[in-house]
């Protein structure tokens, strides 16, 4: 019977949200067993979280100092070794998986399906092209390992309740030293994670300044939402790049998405089309965001947002 190996994303301390969604996707292949590989240092806490996911049979742990930071050039040779004997090798289509999996595929001498969004059969999958303006169904040969990144917004997170076997493994892969981690500057804030939050409030260019973005932060805090932004707002320097939602930023699927002062370029819409309820607030009645919004409100955001925040105050 076939087996799936998931390469877990993590932040060095906790399992990433991508891996939990990969478990759900892996369940669709009809495979006999789902395994998760955790390459980290230290790895124990992350492995324990992976082992608790329902549906996972085994967690493979590769703990070595070189795995402290997720360098694709260092991880790929190890993953390529681990992949032996698996029919499916998948990882999340976030910056971790997008960076790593193609490198692994090339080492294995195979291609890759990017952004796998549905499983139609054991070797037939759907994925978006042209920023989601078209969906293709692709078939992969049955005798070749399938390497894929999983479009995380297309699959819910797996539930807890599992108790997988945790196995420490080592590989004899030679690791390069030509790639070195220097630093990671992550914005420190108490807001929910954009990629897994149930509610997201996003602001666009109409906010006009970084200072005015406080309106968005305040509203988001009031309803426990994560904060996102359009590319225009990021390019204008109102917010950091890790807040960008869209084709080249984050693809998200919250229960509630509020687009405030965002016109709705096709590249932005591709990042939010799996949201359950989309709310648009914009002064331009012709803005394309209203074509996809479930609830629209035309008006001046500088008046509406404070009013909304106050009304939700308690």
């Amino acid at each position, binding site marked *: 019977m076939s087996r799936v190996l998931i390469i877990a994303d993590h932040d060095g301390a906790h399992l990433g949200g991508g891996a939990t969604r990969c478990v759900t996707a892996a369940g669709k292949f009809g495979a006999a067993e789902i395994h998760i590989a955790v390459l980290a240092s230290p790895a124990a806490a992350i492995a324990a979280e992976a082992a608790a996911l329902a549906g996972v049979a085994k967690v493979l742990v590769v703990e070595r100092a070189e795995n402290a930071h997720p360098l694709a050039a260092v991880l790929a040779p190890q993953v390529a070794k681990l992949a032996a004997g698996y029919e499916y090798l998948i990882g999340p289509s976030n910056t971790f998986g997008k960076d790593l999996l193609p*490198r692994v595929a090339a080492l294995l001498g195979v291609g890759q399906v990017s952004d796998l969004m549905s499983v139609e059969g054991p070797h037939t999958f759907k994925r978006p092209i042209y920023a989601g303006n078209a969906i293709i169904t692709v078939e992969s040969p049955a005798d070749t390992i399938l390497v894929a990144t999983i479009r995380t917004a297309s699959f819910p997170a797996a539930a807890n309740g599992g108790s997988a076997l945790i196995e420490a493994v080592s590989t004899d892969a030679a690791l390069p030293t030509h*790639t070195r981690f220097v630093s990671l500057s992550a914005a420190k804030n108490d807001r929910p994670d954009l990629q897994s939050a149930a509610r997201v409030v996003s602001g666009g260019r109409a906010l006009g300044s970084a200072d005015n973005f406080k309106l968005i932060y305040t509203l988001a805090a009031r309803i426990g939402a994560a904060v996102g932004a359009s590319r225009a707002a990021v*390019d204008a320097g109102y917010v950091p790049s890790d807040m960008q939602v869209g084709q080249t930023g984050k693809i998200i699927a919250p229960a509630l998405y509020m687009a405030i002062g965002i016109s709705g370029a096709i590249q932005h819409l591709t990042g939010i089309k799996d949201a359950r309820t989309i709310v648009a607030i914009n002064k331009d009645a012709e803005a394309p965001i209203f074509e996809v919004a479930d609830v629209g409100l035309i008006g001046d955001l500088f008046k509406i947002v404070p009013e909304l925040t106050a009304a939700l105050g308690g």
Partner: protein
Amino acid sequence: MKILVGVKRVVDYNVRVRVKPDGSGVALDGVKMSINPFDEIALEEALRIREHGQATEVVAVAIGPDEVQTQLRSALAMGADRAILVKCEAAVEPRDVARALLAVIKQEGIGLAILGKQAIDDDAGQTGQMLAALWQRPQVSFASKVELKDSVATVTREVDSGLETLEVDLPAVITSDLRLNEPRYIKLPDIMKAKKKPLAVTDMAALGVSLAPQFKVLKTEAPPQRARGIMVKDVAELIAELKKRGVLS
């Protein structure tokens, strides 16, 4: 040092593509084609490195049919010194693109390859990483800042958690993200000059690459459309509607 830049001909950024009614693909007849926007950013970065005296030559490489020469001429007009077209009529999967680029890299003695992080047609985002793997060299994907010193590149990349900085030994592959730079506009005299720049044509066989496609596209369809929503007239109505839908309590 010579820099290779990958150039892909894609449907222009501003075109809204339509799926053909028979499900055989997207309609490309008469549609405006351009250089993949991420590749323009890659080229701009290569040009800046050359203008800083850290590279001697920028070579633009494309794979595809003869029409791709139009995009290579644009790359030359932007400032590339030379262009190479790897002629290929068939659709090429990223792994084969990487194999062809590697063959060019070896022929040319390239010291740095800069590619777009993804092409806006197939959105695969694989070629740079695959090239780096086959070349057994470092990769820095999603780059937003590149600094070269001696034979080391210090590159900042946009990752989900923020900005990550890596240091890599050259030769290496860098893939460009949106905020790496803003590509220059092409001026008319540059277009004239570009006509005189060398554009060599080769093909997969000459590079020793035989195509090995793995995937079959069975169907192309339009994405499901969201049902048209409702408009509310004020904040009170908005809140009432969201409570009704159970997304606010």
